[in-house]
């Protein structure tokens, strides 16, 4: 009985190990999938790292803002369309899913963890502010996917 339990335990461990490796591969491939956006994030943060980066007195992008936006970007589901990255004059970074001037959706996370969003969907529009709670809420992802 003890042998059987041990055998069962070994099988369970094997399955768990395989599942863990599978999850790790998925995470790595997701990270690779997000790589272009993560690189763009770094470039924008660097270009906007000094005051007046827009010629109109914009605030610089701070490390805390970069970390918050990185977390948001990293939380995108595997295979989700990648946004383009830009910055606002208040020093916040922004992610945008863009199809045309009248069909696009943007989010911006502030250091306090609030996500500000706005989007044009032809004649319709959506905008508001929600807490990030460590990721992008499903409602926001749905709006981004509708672009």
């Amino acid at each position: 009985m003890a042998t059987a339990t041990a055998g069962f335990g070994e099988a369970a461990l094997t399955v768990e190990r395989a599942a863990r490796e599978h999850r790790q591969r998925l995470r790595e491939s997701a990270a690779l999938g997000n790589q272009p956006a993560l690189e763009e994030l770094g470039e924008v943060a660097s270009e906007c790292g000094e005051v007046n980066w827009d010629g109109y007195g914009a605030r610089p992008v701070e490390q805390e803002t970069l970390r918050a936006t990185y977390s948001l970007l990293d939380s995108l589901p595997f295979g989700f369309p990648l946004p383009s990255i830009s910055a606002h004059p208040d020093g916040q970074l922004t992610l945008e899913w863009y199809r045309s001037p009248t069909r696009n959706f943007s989010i911006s996370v502030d250091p306090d963890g609030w996500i500000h969003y706005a989007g044009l969907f032809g004649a319709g529009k959506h905008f508001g502010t929600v807490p990030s709670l460590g990721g992008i809420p499903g409602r926001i992802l749905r709006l981004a996917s509708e672009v």
Partner: protein
Amino acid sequence: MLDPANVPEVAASEIVTRYLMFGKWYLANGTIKYEAFMPPVDLELSVTRLCQTTDAEIWDVGARVAEESRRKLHGRTDVAVKAFADQQLRVECDPLPNNANHALARGWSADKAQQMIVAKQLAATPGLRRTPPPESTR
């Protein structure tokens, strides 16, 4: 340029220009992105009136602003004052010592999401394009 001693109020029929000094404010095809119209923290968006000016004078002002800011002038986009009014924004004259045509778009909400949707609607104004600077100012 306008006479600094006699700057008229901004008329509803005027056109103003926004200088583009950040490469992500437009697409390669000339489409303007909403970030070009996001207000600064003081909620006063800087623009320059095109009335009583030549094209060369407008580009000279842009080149000087970019040089003073140590930024590259990527171009400009011309917007009707009516487009701001349609978003419940006011364009008011704000002459500067070296730019009598300077004006400010005021009336922005302090709410970030509202700023974003208004900037997006401004950027969606039909016909809005980037005009690249002439060779002489690059």
